[in-house]
């Protein structure tokens, strides 16, 4: 059997990797050559965006946020997700061992691909994820052109 030293560290190393990740996060020096459009780690909310055939879908991780308190606006092809997630402390008698969760105001602006129809927007909140679907304008949808034999 061929043994390659780099192929699969023992699980013991995972704790070291996690420690390294946490330190990188602390100083945010993990990526010295970061993309100019990249966001620092820990940005709230984290989002996914996909461009599909007929729509653009966005998922934002907003756990524990009252869906009615989320301010969602679409203007000039820029989607803004704003809101507040304040974690209340339970008075002075409570001592905290860890405070890693985001607390406070948040705002995130995402520039969207061209050719979307601002009238075809749907947003749904479920299990801490906000799902946004923005339909494409009719003229921007891919069209099948049939070739006729002349």
């Amino acid at each position, binding site marked *: 059997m061929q043994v390659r030293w780099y192929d699969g560290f023992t699980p013991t190393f995972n704790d070291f990797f996690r420690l390294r990740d946490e330190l990188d996060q602390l100083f945010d020096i993990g990526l010295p050559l970061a993309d100019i459009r990249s966001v620092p780690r820990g940005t709230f909310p984290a989002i996914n965006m996909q461009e599909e055939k007929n729509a653009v879908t966005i998922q934002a*991780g907003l756990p524990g946020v009252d869906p009615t308190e989320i301010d969602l606006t679409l203007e000039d092809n820029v989607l803004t997700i704003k809101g507040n997630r304040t974690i209340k402390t339970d008075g002075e008698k409570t001592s905290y061992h860890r405070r890693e969760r985001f607390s406070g105001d948040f705002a995130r602006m995402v520039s969207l691909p061209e050719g979307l129809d601002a009238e075809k927007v749907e947003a749904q909140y479920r299990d801490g994820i906000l799902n946004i679907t923005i339909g494409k304008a009719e003229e921007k949808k891919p069209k099948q052109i049939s070739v006729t034999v002349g």
Partner: protein
Amino acid sequence: MAEKNTNVARQNTAKPSEIATNTLVPPVDICEDKEGVILYADLPGVDKDGLDVHIDKDTLQISGKRTACGTTDANKCYAELPEKDYYRAFTIGEEIDREKISARLTNGVLKVVLPKAERAKPKKIDIKFS
């Protein structure tokens, strides 16, 4: 249901560090007062069926299976929520009453209440004057 059982069986045999491979570590808040310890964990995209809170001896294990987040074949513009499941484990002390631990999942936030056993709670001692 069967799938969930095998999942539990796997967790019983595997070491926490082994499961930690390829999983996301959810951020947590842990606070303590004289009644007990309360843990909050952010688990966006996890529903009741995908969540497993498990106590094995001194280890509290939290694992959450993420529901699909967007279609995979589409052109990705942003991908900050990785397609990974959540896992985090903590050791708990003797003073926690194992039988009274309760957990609740609301809007992607898990709250685990770990009450202290009666004997571990602080007591005020009356001083008698004579």
